[in-house]
Every structure is written in structure tokens, then in C-alpha cells.
């Protein structure tokens, strides 16, 4: 239920068994191995040396495998999104994994993939080349002349090229008028260009070019080909077809590789664990014959680790409690219902080793605030149901799983907040036909407070929640002081605030004539006076100078602004709750406006309802999560939480693709 206790483990053994010891520890996954050199006193480290472990070989293998996996993936049929979420990783035993690692011919497969890829690239580039050529020749296909013969002769000039289709007519007319005995062939029109072949006598060449320039004629030269354009095109097309066939064959070859994907993925995990182990080996200290290892383990895992290492006889294991000046890593454990909220704590940062875990403290607030921000029974149901279904039908990793659990819980509080404010997908129940009026009655009978009609009461409710959490934060700090035996801090710096914060509120209520009677007036007056007096006199108790002391006290009293500003910050609960409700109402209003349109009315209404509510849920879900977290981090944590713990990161089997099991 809190920050876990840690113990330090020291292992000393012969290098002959080092590999086996590390394997055992990796499989156990309970020990975080730290750098020996940095964590042992110099008198000890002098006797040892550290070794740079070369991981190059494994690195290269990993690179090759990820190349193979990525290459093979291209040939896979695309999986649907839902389908890919449902797919659980393959379960593989260590034994089978080792066998795969032995049998799999990595370098052969790697070269096979590389060759295949280069063949693919050649075929593709060839294909694009042929396609550009086809595009080039296509406009000339009606030209029944061998290209080889289209050269200037002793008496004739031949020019081919394009003009803009718009001016073609004018161009031809001018040409015929100006240049005698000219032959103009317009072969085709493509994309507002006209393709023209012109033949005239050499004597008229200059006139010809004059007109060509005038019409922005683009000359095209035919080179390096033989035969009529028609023949060339046929040739090119058959070439393209054969290239396409080649591509299909290559594609089939690639699909043939798919059988190796699973093995490749298993292998990737195998080698990445090997790499991890090698990197860890460089943390150890070495003498000529022995190795020494230093690590942290959770106190509750002590027995399991000892049992795991029992099979080694030539080894010395010492497990001790941490010294005062040592900082063990931090791991937190909570009950099943609170543990999803660890996500929020981790978002901010873990507590330090000797601090209390804030997760159970923030959990009820987070749960409630989230619901108040979203306030809609319908959205609550959808949220919880969605999370429940994805938890059951999808394979999720640790992080997403926690998030789903958290949102499932928050969906429940959203549901209840929605019921009490009478919001079911906004005001959708009001639009139902009168035969279903009983639903409206049920809904209305459950309403405690309608934020749209009565925002002021809702605002006060939000501020009360704020007061409770801020006050509770100071209370936790006092508890921490008492635990640390800091009695002065507890009674002179925290307790006065615990009295003053409600005292001032009472004072305001009395002044505002909301609370009556001399008793309340007395309580309000004296609690405020006494507590603020204490703060003024004692907050600066470390100062010897009386002015310094009073100055610090005054400054501390000014902190009152901070506390009430923090409480006011909780009014965002109202704003976010209102935003959800108002947008939901607008969606409904728009949807039911369309219902009277003939034929398309009902589908349009359904589309607006579904799309609109999904949009509203998504945008407000994000807002609720972010703002609820912020209230924990900035308004609540600042009262007592220090943080700064380094997360426990045990040396363990870590996999990306497969799930490795012992048996």
C-alpha cells in the first residue's frame, strides 16, 4: 500500500558462473543491477576493474533482424485496426527460443532480403522509365513514319513539337499563308497541347522559325529509336508488361519470406535481451578470477531471489538493508482498486524512497473530480463500457491497460455525476415521444442539482471540493511532520493553517449573515485570531532577530492568498461540467431540427447525434483528464509532496514481439 521497502544485494562469485548467474537474474526479473564502480567505496573499487563489454556483434545482428522484419512486413496483408489490437503476442519457451536462435540462418536471410529489395528497386525504376517513354511517344502514335527517316534532307527541313491547343488554328493558318509549300501534320491533342510535325523547304526555314517562335513552339527531338512510333509503343508496352510480371514474381518471393517473420520477431527479442545482458555486464566489477555485482531488490522478493540463486555453490550473496545515505530506487504498490491511479502519480513523478505514496490520497479526489468535469450519465456508460470491452477483448500492454482501468473507474463516477445533474447525452430524454415520458420523470426525480439552471450552487459545490482537498493536503503534511517527529513544524506551521483556513470561511459566513448566533461568531473570531497569531509569532522561529521573525510571520500570513487562490482554481470543475452539458444540448438540438426533413431526416439525425456526441466525449474526456490531473499536481501535491524518486527498473526479460515463458 505504499512505497516498497528495498534491500541491497551484493554478489561475489567466480567468472566461470557469471553468465549463468546473470541469466538466472534476468529470468527472475527482480533485481536492479547498479554500477559497481559508482556505488562501492574507493577502497573496494581499487581492487577491481571495470570491463568495457563489446556489444557490436549483437548490435549488428539486431540491426539486421529489424531490417528483415520491416522488409517482410511490406508483403503482409494489412491487418484491421481492431484485429491488430486483439492479437496477443506469441508465447514461446526459452528452450524453443534458443533452438530458433541456433537454426535461423540470419546472414543468409538478411542477404536474401537485401537482394530482393535491390531487385525490386531495379524493376521499379525501370518501370517508371518505360512509363515516361510511353508518355513521350503516345502523342505521336498516329504518325506512320519511321523515326529514323525524320531527319533534315538536302532540300527539306523537318520540325516536330507542340503548340498550345487554343492557338492551333491561328498557328496553322498563319503558317500556311506565310510559308509556301509547307506540310503540317497535327498528330494529336493532349492536355491542351497540340502535337505538330512540320515539313518545308530549306529555303523557307527562316520564315518557319519566325512563326514558330512567335507562337511559343516547343521543339521535340526524336533520338535513338527506330521504327514508327506505333512500333516503338508496342515494344515499350510489352516491355512494361514483362516488368510487371517480374514485379509479381518478386512479390511472390517476398510473400514466401512471410513464414520467417515470426521467427525473426522471436529472434529480435532474443538478441535484444542478450544485448541488455551484455550492457549490464559492464556494470559489474572484476578481478582476475571473480566478478562482483551490486543491486537493489524489493524486500518482499528477497526469498525468491535467494531461492533462485541457491543452485550456485561457488558464490557469496549478502542481502542488507540500505544505509541512511543510500538512495534505493522507488516502486509503489497499491490495492487493486487504487493501482490504476498510480498512472497519475507516475505522470508527476514517483515519491522519494522515504516519502509516503500519494496515490491512495489522490485516488478518491481524482475519481470524483473527473466525474464532475464530464457529468453525463450517457458518456459515463460509454466510457466504462468501452474500457471494459477493450480490457477484455484486446491485448494491451501494461501502460494502456492501466489507463483503461483508470478510465473505467472514472466512467462510473461520470455516470453518477450525470444522474445527479440530470444529464443523459445532454437533454436527449426531453426529445423522446410523450409515450416514453416516464423516462423523463425518472430522470427528473434523480436530479439533485442542474448546473445549467443553477450554476451558482454548482460553483459553491466545486469550491467546497477545492477547500476539502487543499485542507487535506496541509493535513497530510502535518501527518508527515508528526511521523518525522518534527513537532514544531507540525504544531506551529501546519496546525494553525488547518484552523485558519476554515476559520476565515466561518468568519465570512458570519459576516454575510449566513451563520447566526454568538457561538458561531465566537468560534470564527477566535479560531482565526489564534491561528493567525500563532503563524505571525512562530513562523519565523529560526530567526534570532525579532524583526526578521515578525517579517517572516507576516510573509507566511500572506500565504493565505495562495491557499484561497488554489481553492478558486477548482471552479474549473463547473466550467468543464457546463461545457460538456451545453455542447451535448446543442448537438441534440441540431439533430432534432433535421428530423422533419423528408427522407434524409432520420439518417441525418442519427449521423449528427453519433458524430456530435463522439466529438463532445472525446474533447471533454481530454479536458477532464488534463484538468483533473492539474488539480492534483498543482493544487494538491504542492501542499505536501516532494517527489524525485528514481523508478525501480529491474534487470529482466523485456520483449517487443513475443511473450517468453519458462515452460
Amino acid at each position, binding site marked *: 500500500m505504499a512505497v516498497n521497502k528495498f534491500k541491497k544485494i551484493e554478489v561475489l562469485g567466480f567468472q566461470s558462473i557469471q553468465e549463468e548467474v546473470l541469466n538466472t537474474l534476468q529470468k527472475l526479473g527482480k533485481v536492479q543491477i547498479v554500477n559497481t564502480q559508482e556505488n562501492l567505496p574507493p577502497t573496494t573499487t581499487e581492487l577491481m576493474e571495470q570491463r568495457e563489454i563489446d556489444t557490436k556483434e549483437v548490435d549488428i545482428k539486431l540491426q539486421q533482424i529489424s531490417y528483415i522484419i520491416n522488409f517482410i512486413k511490406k508483403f503482409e496483408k494489412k491487418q484491421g485496426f481492431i484485429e491488430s489490437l486483439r492479437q496477443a503476442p506469441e508465447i514461446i519457451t526459452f528452450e524453443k527460443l534458443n533452438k530458433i536462435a541456433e537454426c535461423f540462418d540470419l546472414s543468409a536471410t538478411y542477404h536474401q532480403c537485401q537482394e530482393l529489395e535491390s531487385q525490386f528497386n531495379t524493376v521499379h525504376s525501370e518501370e517508371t522509365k518505360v512509363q515516361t517513354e510511353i508518355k513521350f511517344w503516345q502523342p505521336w502514335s498516329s504518325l506512320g513514319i519511321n523515326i529514323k527517316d525524320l531527319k533534315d534532307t538536302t532540300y527539306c527541313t523537318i520540325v516536330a513539337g507542340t503548340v498550345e491547343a487554343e492557338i492551333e488554328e491561328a498557328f496553322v493558318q498563319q503558317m500556311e499563308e506565310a510559308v509556301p509549300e509547307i506540310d503540317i501534320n497535327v498528330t494529336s491533342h493532349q492536355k491542351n497541347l497540340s502535337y505538330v510535325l512540320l515539313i518545308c523547304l530549306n529555303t523557307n526555314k527562316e520564315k518557319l522559325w519566325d512563326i514558330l517562335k512567335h507562337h511559343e513552339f516547343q521543339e521535340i527531338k526524336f533520338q535513338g529509336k527506330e521504327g514508327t512510333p506505333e512500333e516503338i509503343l508496342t515494344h515499350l508496352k510489352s516491355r512494361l508488361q514483362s516488368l510487371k510480371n517480374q514485379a509479381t514474381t518478386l512479390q511472390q518471393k517476398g510473400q514466401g519470406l512471410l513464414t520467417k517473420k515470426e521467427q525473426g520477431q522471436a529472434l529480435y527479442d532474443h538478441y535484444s535481451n542478450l544485448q541488455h545482458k551484455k550492457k549490464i555486464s559492464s556494470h559489474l566489477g572484476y578481478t582476475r578470477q571473480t566478478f562482483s555485482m551490486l543491486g537493489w531488490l524489493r524486500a518482499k522478493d528477497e526469498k525468491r531471489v535467494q531461492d533462485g540463486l541457491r543452485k550456485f555453490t561457488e558464490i557469496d550473496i549478502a542481502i542488507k538493508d540500505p544505509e541512511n545515505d543510500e538512495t534505493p530506487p522507488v516502486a509503489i504498490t497499491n490495492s487493486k482498486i487504487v493501482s490504476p491511479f498510480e498512472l497519475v502519480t507516475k*505522470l508527476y513523478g514517483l515519491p522519494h524512497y522515504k516519502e509516503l505514496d500519494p496515490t491512495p490520497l489522490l485516488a478518491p479526489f481524482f475519481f470524483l473530480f473527473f466525474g464532475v468535469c464530464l457529468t453525463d450519465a450517457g458518456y459515463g456508460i460509454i466510457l466504462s463500457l468501452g474500457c471494459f470491452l477493450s480490457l477484455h477483448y484486446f491485448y494491451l500492454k501494461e501502460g494502456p491497460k492501466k489507463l483503461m482501468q483508470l478510465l473505467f473507474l472514472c466512467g462510473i463516477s461520470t455516470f453518477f455525476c450525470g444522474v445527479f445533474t440530470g444529464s443523459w447525452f445532454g437533454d436527449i430524454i426531453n426529445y423522446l415521444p410523450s409515450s416514453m415520458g416516464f423516462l423523463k420523470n425518472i430522470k427528473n426525480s434523480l436530479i439533485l442539482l442542474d448546473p445549467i439552471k443553477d*450554476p*451558482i450552487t454548482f*460553483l459553491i459545490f466545486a469550491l467546497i471540493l477545492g477547500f476539502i482537498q487543499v485542507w487535506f493536503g496541509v493535513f497530510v503534511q502535518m501527518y508527515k511532520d508528526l511521523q518525522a517527529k518534527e513537532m514544531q513544524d507540525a504544531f506551529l506551521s501546519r496546525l494553525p493553517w488547518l484552523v485558519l483556513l476554515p476559520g476565515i470561511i466561518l468568519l465570512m459566513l458570519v459576516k454575510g449573515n449566513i451563520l447566526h448566533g454568538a457561538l458561531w461568531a465566537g468560534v470564527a473570531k477566535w479560531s482565526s485570531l489564534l491561528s493567525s497569531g500563532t503563524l505571525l509569532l512562530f513562523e519565523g522561529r529560526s530567526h534570532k532577530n525579532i524583526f526578521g521573525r515578525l517579517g517572516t510571520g507576516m510573509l507566511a500570513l500572506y500565504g493565505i492568498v495562495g491557499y484561497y487562490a488554489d481553492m478558486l*482554481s477548482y*471552479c*474549473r470543475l*463547473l*466550467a*468543464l461540467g*457546463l*461545457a460538456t452539458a*451545453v*455542447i451535448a*444540448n*446543442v448537438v441534440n*438540438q441540431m439533430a432534432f431540427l433535421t428530423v422533419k426533413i423528408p427522407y434524409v431526416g432520420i439518417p441525418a439525425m442519427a449521423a449528427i447525434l453519433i458524430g456530435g456526441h463522439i466529438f463532445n466525449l472525446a*474533447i471533454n474526456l*481530454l*479536458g477532464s483528464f*488534463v*484538468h483533473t*490531473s*492539474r488539480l492534483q*499536481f*498543482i493544487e494538491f501535491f504542492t501542499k505536501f509532496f516532494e517527489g524525485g524518486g528514481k523508478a525501480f527498473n529491474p534487470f529482466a526479460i523485456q520483449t517487443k514481439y513475443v511473450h517468453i515463458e519458462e515452460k
Partner: protein
Amino acid sequence: MWGLVYAIAGAATAVILAGIGSSVGIGIAGQTADGLLSEDPESFGNILILTVLPGTQGIYGFVAAFFVIIRLGLLAGTVPQVSAAVGISIFLACLPVAFGGLFSGIYQGKVSAAGVAVAAKQPNESMKAVILSALVETYAVLGLLITILLLMGIKIQ
């Protein structure tokens, strides 16, 4: 008659200014996000959240305008009678969310854009950038709240 004009001008101002804030903000964040996306398309989920964050200001403006519409009973079909003083009051009540949304949207966009860099280098920490970006939004929320409270407080007739 002029009262209605002023009131509608208020609702429109809220939507327009807060909308500008959001569009500029998302614009800034989105451009940076696209930069990251070109390198690492798989980070889309992470940076989508950062990019849509400045979008809430526009929604707040919309909510405020809707409150004006409800208060005036514009959707009821009859043209409400609003005095000039009430109309100007409604106009002024709309300003907190309008300007709060305008400026916080733009600055939230800038913080989000910087947060995209966090998502690029430390994908696991991107939620922290989201929280930082949400700090800016507080002032749009406060603006909306005051606008709504003022609107609820104004006596129409």
C-alpha cells in the same frame, strides 16, 4: 431594438475571438507536429493530443454564445425585447471569454508546439507536456466561467 443588436454582437465576438485564438494556436502546434510526423509517423497519437489542446478556447466561446442564445430565447421563435443597457451588458459579459480565449489559445499553441519537441525526444513523457500546455488554458476557463456567471446574472426584462 438596438439592445438585441448589441447582445448578438457579444455572442458573435465570443465565438470569433476565441475561435481565432484556437485556430492560431492549433495552427502553430499543428505545424510543429507535422514536422515531427514527417520523421516519425507513429507518434501521431501522442502529438494529436498536444495539437488539439488549444482547440478548447473555440469551444468555450461557442458555449458562451450559446448561453447568450438561451438567455435571449432566440431559438424560441419570437424576437425578444431587449433594452440597449441590457444589450450592452450582455456584450461586455461576453468579453472575458472572448479575450481570454484569444490570447490563451495563441500562447497555448506555442507551449504545445514546444511540447511536440518533448514528444519527439521522450515519447513516454509527452503527457507532462500536455499538462504544462493545459496550464495556459486555465485563464480561458476562468474567462468562460465569469462570462457565464455574468450572463446568468443579467436580468433580461
